């Protein structure tokens, strides 16, 4: 009996030994970046078998909290960290964190494919999402109510959209909170009066609306050229945050992400490289 137990324990250790000697990197955070993060991890692990990278989503807010709570090495975020979050990080670890911009993303607004709308101004998007415009009729569409879809409040996309498009105002109380970008896309694709927002990489099955800065300018679609040139008004950076200046295996990983290989993965997934 005792010998069987000893054998079992030894067997477990043997199986886990290669894993124990490996360097493990935990990555948590943005759902917008989760597919990108997984592709990075897979490609990197294939080339460097001595490193294991664990990737989870949960939203930018979740990732930043995990960084502050000390449960992750790298945190993906689709919005910059707030001063209050940096203060908390400083309280616990003595440093305000290091911000690394890794990709560019255009936030797009999309409507159902059956919706005749093609372009919107930033002010109109703001009025729609704060509830001031509540019918498609005011935008030249059919006489139907606008059904708002958005993200949960732990999402970086939610915060970024609120700060940069709604100018800090709160969303309308009737905006339905979906758990991820794909869920927003799914909801809008099934609801002919729906409108949603999200990262450009997830826009399949619905139609992205061209955005213009104000009523008199040209409306731009969220394409590679428009985002890189800065014409598309709602562009943001996708960040990775670490507690201290990267060193060792983490530095190698981040350098790889910022290098040619990592940036080519960014283009493949549908975001836009930073260079």
């Amino acid at each position, binding site marked *: 009996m005792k010998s069987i137990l000893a054998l079992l324990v030894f067997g477990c250790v043997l199986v886990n030994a290669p894993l124990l000697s490996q360097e493990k990197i935990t990555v948590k955070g943005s759902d917008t970046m989760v597919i990108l993060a997984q592709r990075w991890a897979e490609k990197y692990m294939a080339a460097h078998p001595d490193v294991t990278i664990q990737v989870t989503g949960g939203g930018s*807010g979740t990732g930043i909290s995990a960084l502050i709570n000390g449960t992750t090495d790298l945190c993906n975020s689709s919005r910059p960290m707030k001063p209050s979050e940096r203060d908390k990080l400083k309280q616990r670890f003595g440093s305000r964190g290091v*911000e690394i*911009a890794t990709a560019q993303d255009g936030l797009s607004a999309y409507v159902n494919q059956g919706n005749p709308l093609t372009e919107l101004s930033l002010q109109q998007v703001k009025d729609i999402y704060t509830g001031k415009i509540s019918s498609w009729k005011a935008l030249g569409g059919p006489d139907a109510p606008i059904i708002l879809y958005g993200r949960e409040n732990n999402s970086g996309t939610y915060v970024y959209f*609120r700060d940069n498009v709604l100018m800090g105002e709160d969303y309308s109380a*009737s905006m*339905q*909170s979906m758990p991820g970008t794909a869920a927003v896309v799914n909801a809008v694709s*099934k609801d002919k009066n729906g409108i949603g927002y999200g990262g450009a990489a997830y826009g399949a099955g619905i139609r992205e609306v061209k955005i213009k800065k104000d009523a008199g300018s040209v409306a731009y679609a969220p394409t590679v050229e428009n985002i890189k040139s800065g014409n598309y008004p709602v562009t943001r950076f996708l960040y990775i945050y670490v507690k201290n200046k990267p060193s060792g295996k983490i530095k190698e990983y981040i350098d790889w992400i910022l290098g040619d290989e990592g940036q080519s993965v960014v283009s493949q997934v549908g975001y836009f490289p930073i260079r």
Partner: protein
Amino acid sequence: MVADPQQVLPGTPLPHSTAQVGHSFTSASRSADIRPDPLTVGEMKRMRGADLKKRFRWDEFLSEIIITVVAFVSLAAIVGIFVFVFREAMPIFLVPSIDATVAAPPEAQETYGNEQIGDAARRVSGSDRSRTAEGSGSEGESTLANFLGTTWAPVSMDPRYGIIPLVVGSIKVTLLAVCIAGPVAILAALFTSSFAPRWSKEILKPAIEILAGFPSVVIGFFALVVLATLLQDLFGYKFRLNAFLGGVAMSLAVIPIIFTVAEDALAAVPKFMTEASLALGATKWQTALFVKLPAATPGVFAALLLGFGRAFGETMIVLMATGNAAMLSFNMLEPVRTMSATIGAEMAEVVFGDTHYNVLFMLGAILFLFTFVLNAVAEVFIRQRLLKRFRGG
């Protein structure tokens, strides 16, 4: 001379003289003494030695200890969870007011890899259109006033933790679920216990109990992908994801619970009642509805309460199917945000010790208290009264 009862009985030997009668009376009454002096336990023990005392057995002693410890561990776990949840929720009542977060003087953010980005980064991140600095402290209202407000906006320039829309949302969905599931399950239980032939009863009961085995996330997913579009096409209402859809999906999860308990209650109705009713000329339907169902009312009521409790705490179904919009309204066709879905969606993003964290624990405490009070009231007060009424107490 007193009449001697022994002399009256047939077969008793007749005394030869009066003196003998007196003598035999005394000795006879003595030997026929019906009540001997009671022996004390001590006397009995002394008489029979140590055989009366329970013999100490190791296996019995150990099993008693183990069972006692396990029972106390479960009790301790319940009390422990109770204490922990309330302890984490307490700090909000000790904070005098909730201030909007104050803007800190912006220190330069340390970056890495910026040299490679060039102009683009500086252009976008230095954009003057964004307003990421938090609003400077607006007058902090009292904590209680904040909680009894009607807006739930915890991640905002001016955080508001009004829980009223969440409570109303939970109650709406739960009531809908029980109103749909209750009649369906009780009628199914009635059918299974009174009308179904034996072969079909043996198929029906397990089949409905299999429905209980469905993971609620699967039901929620099914509601989101299939039911939502179906119901919107059928009824043509405005919001695709709403409280009605949540209620319908939840009823799928609640039906097996109500069915099982109600069916047991109906089967436990004494046979003489049904037989008496049928003998008096009532039809099967009249017997089932007017004799069996009233007799089983305490059990059916308990079933409904169990279903209510289950529906109140359900998270995944409402998270996926109700749209999670914190709107305060009594319209069943509008999206709702329940307390359980709020905790489920937001717990991961809060920093431990934050006000938001404490508020979420308070929601958990409210959920717990609600179901606890409901079950206690039902169990102690209503069920006992109903039991007394129907069993003729």
